[in-house]
């Protein structure tokens, strides 16, 4: 453009020289020359205006391209289809207006006001886009003014490749996705419905019970996380169990136990990849789940907490045939640490697969745990061990642990768990659990898991108690629907050291857990 201006000025100077130079004698020929010069100047002005409009069009086009690049970067982790929808249809290249023909009469020149209006219109649209870009945490560098591109050449072609100035913009923006220091917030809702039908024979009667499966009861949770760097985040969880007719409460005498609502988790956590995680609020203590490590795939209905699925069912006295006050969950317990409590908890980062954890809990309780997980020689292995101090005055301490290993090639798996309470005034109570399983990929839509387990419990409800449970279960995943269908059979036996003998309880279960 500057070249054009120079040429126009040169023409002007020549014209002036003709007008006022020593050779000027003010003749008719000179007048015609002046008129010709005037025409040339007018044409040059028209050309300059046309080129200015074209350059503004080019600028608008480049800014649209920049907007597209930003959209791509925002969706760069999404699927291809998401990216395509985010980008939208390609923007057609702006029409290239040829420079005004020299033959165009001055009266036909584009109105300058109209041209300015156009540029202002695009400028206002651009300013809107610019506003978006100012909010955009991945700001791309502004393209160089089109004039600099036009330097040395008359017009930049509309279909020319992007200026090289824009090339580094992509890489800079991509880096920004990794190195940004802006907090990144995500709030999610998740949960599940887990319903089951238990058919229970207590030695005398057989009844069906429609329950919420307490093994993993129906619940929903809100999780909010803010990531402040690649290594640090702050999160909070509110998790509520909404569990009508919970299987822990339903019994032969209370088949409609009503609504069970439990604030399972109300907590905040601070996590740093190098320094570990601190939890504050109500949630899992360090020892929670340490007796329940399970890789079998059947643990939606079959795990070391063998009582959960029919916890409220009462044993019937053999001699009189009357229902006792001893429920399944009185006689069987897996000593799984201190469950969920109001606490402050710290987890170390994992090192060589190990992780240490400790928590201080309300009412003078505390616990500590060691966890290890790793993949060795084709086996996935997970294990945990915990020691805890319950608040009960009769319990000195509680020990529990579990381990589970899955052979990834065959799907065969083994799970072991155990726990005990050291008691002051009576014999220690304990529980041992073992399960063998097979996790098969029979169907395309989800894995099929089979499990056989055995439990031995001692002195849990009373001194001299011996309980045994044998069970079998199958769980079919239907991944496209986020669903697990399950069925199981369990046989509970409780022998008392003293007092009345009890009938065995046999329970069959079918049900489904649906994640929404």
């Amino acid at each position, binding site marked *: 453009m500057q070249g054009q201006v120079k040429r126009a000025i040169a023409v002007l100077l020549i014209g002036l020289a003709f007008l006022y130079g020593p050779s000027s004698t003010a003749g008719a020929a000179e007048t015609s020359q002046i008129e010709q010069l005037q025409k040339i100047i007018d044409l040059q002005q028209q050309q300059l205006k046309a080129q200015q409009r074209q350059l503004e069009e080019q600028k608008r086009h480049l800014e649209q391209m920049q907007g597209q690049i930003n959209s791509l970067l925002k969706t760069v982790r999404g699927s291809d289809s998401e990216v395509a929808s985010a980008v939208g249809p390609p923007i057609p290249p702006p029409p290239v207006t040829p420079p005004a023909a020299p033959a165009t009469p001055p009266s036909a020149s584009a109105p300058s006001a109209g041209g300015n209006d156009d540029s202002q219109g695009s400028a206002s649209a651009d300013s809107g886009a610019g506003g978006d870009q100012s909010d955009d945490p991945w700001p791309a560098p502004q393209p160089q003014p089109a004039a600099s591109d036009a330097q040395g050449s008359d017009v930049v072609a509309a279909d020319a490749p992007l200026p090289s100035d824009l090339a580094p913009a992509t890489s800079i923006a991509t880096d920004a996705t990794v190195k940004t220091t802006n907090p990144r917030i*995500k709030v*999610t809702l998740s949960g599940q419905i887990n319903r089951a039908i238990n058919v229970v024979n207590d030695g005398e009667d057989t009844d069906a019970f429609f329950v919420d499966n307490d093994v*993993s009861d129906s619940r929903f949770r*809100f999780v909010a996380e803010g*990531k402040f760097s690649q290594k640090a*985040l702050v999160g909070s969880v509110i998790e509520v169990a909404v569990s009508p007719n919970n299987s822990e409460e339903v019994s032969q005498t209370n088949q409609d136990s009503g609504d069970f609502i439990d604030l399972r988790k109300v907590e905040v956590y601070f996590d740093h990849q190098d320094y570990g995680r601190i939890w504050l609020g109500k949630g899992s203590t360090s020892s929670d789940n340490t007796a329940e490590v399970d890789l079998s795939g059947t643990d939606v209905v079959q795990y070391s907490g063998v009582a959960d699925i029919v916890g409220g069912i009462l044993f019937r006295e053999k001699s009189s045939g009357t229902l006792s006050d001893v429920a399944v969950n009185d006689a069987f317990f897996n000593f799984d640490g201190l469950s969920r409590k109001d606490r402050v908890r710290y987890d170390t980062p994992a090192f060589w*697969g190990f992780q240490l954890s400790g928590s201080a809990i309300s009412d003078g309780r505390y616990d500590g745990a060691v966890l290890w997980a790793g993949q*060795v020689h084709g086996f996935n292995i997970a294990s945990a061990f915990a020691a805890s101090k319950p608040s009960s005055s009769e319990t000195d301490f509680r020990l529990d642990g579990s381990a589970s290993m899955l052979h990834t090639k065959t799907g065969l798996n083994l799970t072991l768990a155990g726990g005990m309470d050291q008691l002051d005034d009576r014999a220690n109570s304990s529980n041992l659990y073992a399960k063998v399983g097979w996790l098969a990929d029979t169907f395309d839509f989800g894995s099929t898991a089979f499990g056989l387990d055995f439990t031995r419990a001692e002195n849990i409800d009373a001194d001299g108690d011996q309980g045994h449970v044998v069970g079998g279960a199958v769980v079919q995943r239907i991944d496209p629907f986020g669903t697990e269908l399950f069925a199981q059979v369990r046989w509970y036996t409780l022998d008392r050291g003293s007092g009345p003998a009890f009938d065995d309880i046999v329970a069959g279960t079918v049900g489904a857990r649906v994640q929404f």
Partner: protein
Amino acid sequence: MARLWILLAALALAGCAEVKPFHPVQNREDPDGPGLFSGKGGKIILYESPDAEVGEDQ
């Protein structure tokens, strides 16, 4: 006896050398996998800041 302990320690170290990271999912507590309505991620996103991928790469 001391030799036995040394042998066991050597075996344990040899075993550790083969260990690869493994992060078990607590299937009963917070199951991994797709949801009926939420799809592949299993979580319905209520809010996400424009550049957020929080939780995906933990």
